[in-house]
Structures are given as structure tokens and as C-alpha cells.
């Protein structure tokens, strides 16, 4: 098994590959099914409008969080670890939004024998709006 990334190759300012999904009921209903998250305003336009979202039903914050985890996993590969992920839900995920996870390395250090890489992350929509500012820490293998 080979690693996707090595700690030595990381530099502050490096960006993770963009990870995108066009979102709507096909995504939300599947997520509701596995997470048992059948909240009316995620399932039904009328309930979404009743919750003061004029465009109707809207996506789950938890699914946006999953997209961040997935973007990190796809980037670091299976020989590395996701140590921490945090985010704030600042905007609603509307139907047909194209969400893109973005991230940039802000720091790298060795702590307690672990090769830690810190990132700032976000989830932007098709208009470039930042909907979910956050951070992440991953643990990468070393070449030595």
C-alpha cells in the first residue's frame, strides 16, 4: 500500500483538491436514510418554507460535514488519519446548489511523534459563497 501524501511534501499554502457535489433530494434522502434524519424541512418544500426558507426544503448540515470528511479522506488516502474537523454552518444548502469543499494548509508540526498538518477549510456554493468555514487536522506518514 502506498501513501497519497507524505508529511515532508506538505507546505503551508498548499491547497487540497476541490471536492464537489450538486445537492438535492437524491443526496438528502439517501443521507436521511442512513442517518435516520427525517426532519421535515429537509424532506418537504412546504415544511422548508414554513421554516422560513423561501426556496423550500434545504440540505443537512451533517451532510455538508460529511463532504468535508470525504474531501480530506480522498486527499490524504488510506495511510493517513483525520484527527480533527470543525465547521460552522453559516448559510443554507439550497436545492441544486453545487457545493465544493476547499482547504489550505496553514501549519505543519511534529507533536508527540505525530506529523500534524493543520488546514483551514470551507464549503462554497456555485456563487462562490462561503457556507461553512472551519478547520481540520490530519496526520500524515513520513518518508523516513
Amino acid at each position, binding site marked *: 500500500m502506498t501513501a497519497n501524501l507524505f508529511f515532508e511534501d506538505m507546505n503551508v499554502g498548499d491547497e487540497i483538491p476541490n471536492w464537489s457535489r450538486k445537492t438535492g433530494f437524491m443526496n438528502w434522502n*439517501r443521507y436521511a436514510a*442512513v442517518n435516520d434524519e427525517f426532519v*421535515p424541512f429537509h424532506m418537504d418544500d412546504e*415544511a422548508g418554507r*414554513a421554516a422560513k426558507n423561501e426556496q423550500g426544503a434545504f440540505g443537512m448540515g451533517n451532510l455538508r460535514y460529511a463532504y468535508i470528511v*470525504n474531501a480530506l479522506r480522498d486527499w490524504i488516502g488510506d495511510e493517513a488519519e*483525520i484527527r480533527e474537523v470543525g465547521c460552522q454552518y453559516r448559510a443554507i444548502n439550497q436545492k441544486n446548489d453545487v457545493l465544493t469543499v476547499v482547504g489550505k494548509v496553514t501549519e505543519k508540526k511534529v507533536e508527540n511523534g505525530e506529523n500534524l498538518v493543520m488546514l483551514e477549510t470551507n464549503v462554497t456554493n456555485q456563487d462562490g459563497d462561503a457556507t461553512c468555514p472551519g478547520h481540520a487536522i490530519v496526520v500524515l506518514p513520513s518518508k523516513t
Partner: protein
Amino acid sequence: MSESEDETLVTQDMIDRQGVWGGERTSPPIAESDIRKWAIATYWPEKPPAIYWDAEYAAGTKHGGIIAPSDFNPFAWPVDRPTRPAAANTGQGGRGRTGLNGGQTDTYGVPMRADDVIRSRSRLKEWNERQGRMGLMLYTFTETEWTNQNDEMVRTRISTGIRY
């Protein structure tokens, strides 16, 4: 609404519960199919990585077998259904009864695997109030710990709840 009604959304119940661990739960054993379905749903419509569904591939990785995505929830689909306040389901209600998910920070330990049984406990950590677009807004921070059957830390979450 009078000014006195707008003074605080903090309740005596919150004050009593601050820092007190509770809400203890134990998950059913995680099934490999739970992990596979979770990965398919969260990667939809693309194919999820093999580490989440291909035992032969996963055996050759540092993990030595299939692991669950970090965000996997082993507590979904309890037989005894939790009751939710009506306001939490609709996003509507009276003053202080509209709830929003403000976000979270998760710190991960060992990964979850098939046959793991996860124990959870949580406590209200702290809160603050501030004036926002919707009037007085209450931000609560809840800490939740997950450990597995070997008492290994799986995940610690600080979640932010917003009420107005």
C-alpha cells in the same frame, strides 16, 4: 414582547445540567453493511473509497480492515424512538424555541469498525447569549464523548446549538 421577556433564554434546567454527564447510550454492534451504506450515501453519486467496503483491499492498509468514515453515526435507527420537541422538527416555535445546528468540532481517536459497540455520554459544557438578526440568540456548547468496547476514545464532539 416586553424587555423583561428578552433578558435571557437561559433556563434553570440548563444551569442545573451544566457540566453534568448524562444521556448515556450504547449503540448496537456496527455492521459492515451500515458502513457501506453510509459511505455510498455520503459519496453519492460517486463510488466511495474501497477502505469503506472492500475487505481484501482494506486488509492491506495500515488499518488492517474496513473502517467506517469518520463521521459515521452508529446510533442511527434506535428501536426506542427519541422524542423531539415539535419546534426542533419544524424550525418554528415561540421565543427561544427555534433551534439551529450551528456547527461542531470533532476530535477523532481510533476508527470505528464492524462489530464495534460504541458508548456515548454528553454534557452541557457552556453557553453564551448575544443579539442577532432574529433578536436574542442563545449559543449552547455540548460535549459528547464516544468510546468503544475497549474503552478507546473514538470521538469527542463539541456541538454548537443556536436558539432564538
